[in-house]
């Protein structure tokens, strides 16, 4: 559906995006992850032609997009991070304005469907600039869906939404994908990506470190394991001793539980037990856990595991 070939953006001395090769396939939900400043929004702006790349190209359905092309945006719906509605229009008028830009002459039925779906029907005649953040986010989603695009690009789509709103957005995304649409989500809320995405790309300092399915990502990270140990009592010296071990990446304490992120796939339970017992600790429970996407994300984007991407 959408592909980039060595897409690069350089601002004077700063390389925002470095030789990015993305491949978003038709009909999938693609999660685009990265810490703040990784280059996600810059990438999205280049996909939409709002920023001219320094080098490389964007292909949509195999056709390269030129700097003056704009007709391809008829197939795309976009929800931006930090929705801005500064116009003097009501929510209803704003969506109708955009619907007409997309060439829809009588969008009112479709508008009603979307406004009702996202609980904005009762406030549709209020000024868009007076909407709350969550309402503006929903309005952005309506604006992005009004013309039934083949590709949805969502930049932080659930930002500012309450749990009910998040559920509504998730339902729309899943329903959309089931109907054959392609969804490209850029988000920091990793649990949302984990639930929805078929494939994930992780961007760090402008470079795509990993692009893989969720299962592939977990398998790749199976080199590392996570362990939870419950103790009768946790001595502060024990946490320090554990952290200093070469096979332990991270130790998090939660009451009497210690959550360990290990650097190795080997069975080191015996070593851990000995270390804990020597420190005077009494083990009540010891259990290995599957790494969540959040931990994978933190692990992949930390510098001492860049080799993992290779």
């Amino acid at each position, binding site marked *: 559906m959408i592909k980039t070939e060595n897409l690069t953006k350089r601002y004077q001395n700063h390389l925002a995006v470095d030789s990015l090769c993305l491949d978003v396939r*038709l*009909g999938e939900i693609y999660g685009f992850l990265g810490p703040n400043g990784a280059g996600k929004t810059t990438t999205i*702006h280049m996909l*939409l*032609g*709002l*920023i001219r790349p320094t080098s490389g190209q964007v292909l949509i*359905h195999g*056709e390269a997009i030129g700097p*003056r092309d*704009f*007709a*391809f*945006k*008829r*197939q*795309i719906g*976009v929800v*931006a991070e*930090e*929705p*801005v*509605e*500064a*116009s*003097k*229009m009501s929510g209803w008028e704003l969506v109708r*304005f*955009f619907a*007409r*830009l*997309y*060439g829809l002459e009588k969008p009112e039925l*479709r508008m009603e*469907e*979307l406004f009702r*779906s996202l609980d904005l029907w009762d406030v549709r005649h209020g000024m868009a600039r007076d909407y709350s953040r969550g309402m503006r986010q929903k309005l*952005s989603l309506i604006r*992005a*869906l009004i013309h*039934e*695009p*083949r590709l949805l690009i969502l930049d932080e789509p659930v930002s500012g939404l309450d749990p009910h709103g998040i559920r*509504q957005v998730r*339902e*729309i995304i899943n*329903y*959309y994908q089931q*109907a*054959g*649409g392609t969804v490209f989500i850029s988000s920091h809320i990793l649990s949302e990506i984990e639930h929805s995405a078929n494939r994930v790309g992780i961007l760090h300092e402008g470079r795509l470190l990993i692009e893989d399915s969720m299962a592939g990502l977990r398998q790749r990270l199976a080199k590392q394991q996570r362990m939870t140990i419950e103790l009768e009592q946790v001595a502060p010296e024990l946490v320090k001793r554990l952290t200093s071990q070469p096979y332990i990446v991270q130790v998090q304490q939660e009451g009497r539980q210690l959550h360990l992120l290990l650097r190795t796939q080997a069975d080191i339970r015996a070593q851990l037990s000995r270390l804990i017992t020597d420190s005077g600790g009494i083990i009540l429970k010891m259990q290995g856990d599957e790494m969540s996407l959040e931990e994978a994300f933190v692990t992949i984007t930390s510098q001492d595991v860049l080799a993992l991407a290779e």
Partner: protein
Amino acid sequence: MQISTSTVGKERVATRSDPPVWSLRWRVARQIAGQELRDALFGWSFYLTAAIGPFLSALFVYNSLNFVAASGLLIQARPFYVPVLVTTTLAALYIAAWATLAIARPRDQGSLRVLFFAPVDEYGVIGGHILAGVAIYALLVLIAAPLLGLLAALTNLPFPPLLLVGLLVSPVFAVVAVAIGLCISTIAPSSRSAMFFLGATLLVVLAIPIGYTALLKVPPTSRYYDALLFLRGLMQTLRDLLNWISPYALLSAGTDAAMRASWGDLIQRLVVGIAGGMVWAALAIWGLQRRGVLP
């Protein structure tokens, strides 16, 4: 929750079925022009400008009548020439200021970026704003014209039909004012600097003829006369150039040509106005492509 997704999963149809680019741009321009016009009509500044023009015209006519009464002269040449010029110049100033904020402010606010998520390009956006600017100007003139007519009827002063011709063609010169404002708006780093730049430009446009007139008054016997000759020549060149570039100079010259029924002169000014408008519009499009739509 279900929403209709009748076209979503379909493979992209062939490029040949996409509408032509000019059609997309025309659609964008129409939508933007319509929305901007509606926004202007719902704003107070439009009505303030519409009121100030006839008010100043009434003031001028009142002063003229007082002069006639005080001097005992029963001659009043072109009593409505200056009022019409004041009204049209004020309207052109208003749309220049409006155009100066038209791109810079939404770009500062982030909403220009959102507009470009849709199938919109710089040609459609600039074209739409030019259409809107001319429509706003035409409405201001349409509101003022009957009021000026009423003033003529009340004072029994003649309102020459040729002045109506001047009013009718004045939107052509207004296009230049809009296009210059849009050009400033696209290249300025912020809306505040855009307004500052417009103000500076207007000051320069005013200063050149005033400066030239002042320099002409330096007598040949003055010891600075020779030293100021070069400056006087430069100011004269700039003033002559401004007469062909400035929308306000074109408006004045065009109205004057219409009043004198000097059709060749009027057509010449109209052609220059149209060409000037196209040049400034092209610069505005280039400015927007170059500067971009992001804050």
